[in-house]
């Protein structure tokens, strides 16, 4: 059972586990009614994101015998420190039914960890690409302003932005943003 509010990440984990041959999977996006689902499905392993604020609720469920029939412990083995550290680093936590063989559970946990890490990398790259795109737009607008107001060529306008950025030890996109703001303030008032 995978509990993850992040739909995209949940599907990444799901795909990974299915590829590895684990096909009795349940993915839950929210924790409403989770006690009933656990009681019905009796999962061997429950994987949950550390971002999920409901971990405390879930752990409490595991302690109440009437909610779950089988005792659930955390992680594969408390002594397996490297696994625990890797999981926490990756931002994932797993609860495992007591008595389940370590050889059976470890690959599942390892898969969850590697998928979480892959997802974080993807999210980071996406964020970087987005920022990159934003900066490029800002720089284009700033170049346009310089070309129009000072009659510069595109190349000279860019060189001026870059030189200013280097002199002030700031990013070109920051200089572009300042220029756009300043141009907005200095622009002649629009006819009303």
């Amino acid at each position, binding site marked *: 059972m995978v509990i993850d509010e992040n739909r995209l990440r949940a599907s990444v984990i799901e795909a990974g586990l299915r590829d590895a041959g684990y096909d009795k999977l349940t993915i839950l996006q929210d924790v409403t009614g989770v006690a009933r689902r656990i009681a019905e499905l009796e999962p061997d392993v429950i994987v949950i994101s550390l*971002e999920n*604020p409901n*971990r*405390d*609720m879930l752990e*409490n469920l595991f302690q109440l015998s009437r909610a779950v029939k089988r005792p659930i412990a*955390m*992680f594969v083995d408390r002594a397996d420190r490297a696994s*625990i550290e890797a999981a926490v*680093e990756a931002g994932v936590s797993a609860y495992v039914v007591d008595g389940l063989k370590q050889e059976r559970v470890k690959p599942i946990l390892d898969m969850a960890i590697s998928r979480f890490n892959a997802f974080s990398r993807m999210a980071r790259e996406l964020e970087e690409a987005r920022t990159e795109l934003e900066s490029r737009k800002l720089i284009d607008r700033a170049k346009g302003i310089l070309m129009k107001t000072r009659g510069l060529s595109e190349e000279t306008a860019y060189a001026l932005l870059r030189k200013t950025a280097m002199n002030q030890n700031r990013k070109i996109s920051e200089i572009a943003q300042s220029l756009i703001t300043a141009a907005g303030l200095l622009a002649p008032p629009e006819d009303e």
Partner: protein
Amino acid sequence: MAADRQITAGIMPLLDSALLVAAKEKGFASGEGIDLALVRETSWANIRDRLAVGHFQVAHVLAPMPIACNLGLTPLAARTVVPMALGLGGNAVTVSNVLWEDLVGNGAKADLDPRTAGAALKSVVTGRATRGDGPLRFAVVHPYSGHNYELRYWLAACGIDPTRDVEIVIVPPPLMADALAAGTIDGYCAGEPWNTASVVLGVGHILTVKAAIWRSSPEKVLSADARWAEAQPEALAALLRALCKSAQWCAAPANREELAGLLSGPAYLQKPAAWMMPALSGQIETGGAQTTRVEDFFIPFAKAATFPWKSHALWFYSQMVRWGQVAHNAANEAVARETYRPDLYRAALGPMGIAMPVANAKVEGALTAETPVGSAGASLSLGPDGFFDGEIFDPDRLDDYIARQR
């Protein structure tokens, strides 16, 4: 700054993270040579896990949690020590508007008095049982929390069996108001500003407060990874000095607005500064435009509010036993007692000349008025510290207390 003076602390978005937040933001930590990083977490389980794997050296935790960890009651348990408390009080019990109307019909008043509120709740609970309606559902933030124990203590003292007559579930504090509005729960016990949140949003009424159930009672503590605390005693002592100065700053009425502003920031609670003011000023808005003044609602520094009393640890232990979370025996009692470390507190803060109790434990509930007590350094007054039902907890007579509550 030396690497061993870099300290990362986990915090939860609660008003009583104030001592850590102000220690960082007002420069008390850097003034002691500590490079303090605060990481906001989404669950107590995350804080516990990150302490266990060494991501955090210290954390803002529920006062019973380190005891539960050391008793091996939690899934991932690393040895932790409690060298300092992070203030006293700060919680309240909030109920839905529907339950509030029902309680008013049964004699509840907007004065936050736990006796009248409890009597009204008892009538409502009995009425529901007679009609065959399901039990009321209350939420607390964690099974090993002051909230869970004070809610149960109050209910039991009012003749309501917390196990049989009502249902108690776990909900994270920032989600309490939503759960109340959605009707998932009928009431909850949580720290501020998450009671005020329901009042401001118009979804609930504050029924009573921790300070009225047990005045001057423990709530959050500083939990430290025991391995780190043993390896870096100087860094820990410097952090405790910074937190002590921060506690004094937080306690000054002149700093309330600034503190509320700091806490409302994006790295911390991300909620309006006005939400922080009731807890800091003691002017509690209970709902329906009513305001009630609560003495000692949240105490950051006065009355030895940061001292890690062994009697507090033992009271939490007595409640773990009472509600079947742990068996009572000498070994478990010793674990609870040794988790709280007034010796570390004394070693770090004694030289500062602050008011320092002479004893490591006290009889809880014995003081009915503010009373000067034996102290080293500045003079010290404690109390009142009474339980609302007049009971007394004498840590030297733990067995009696446990037997009496069976």
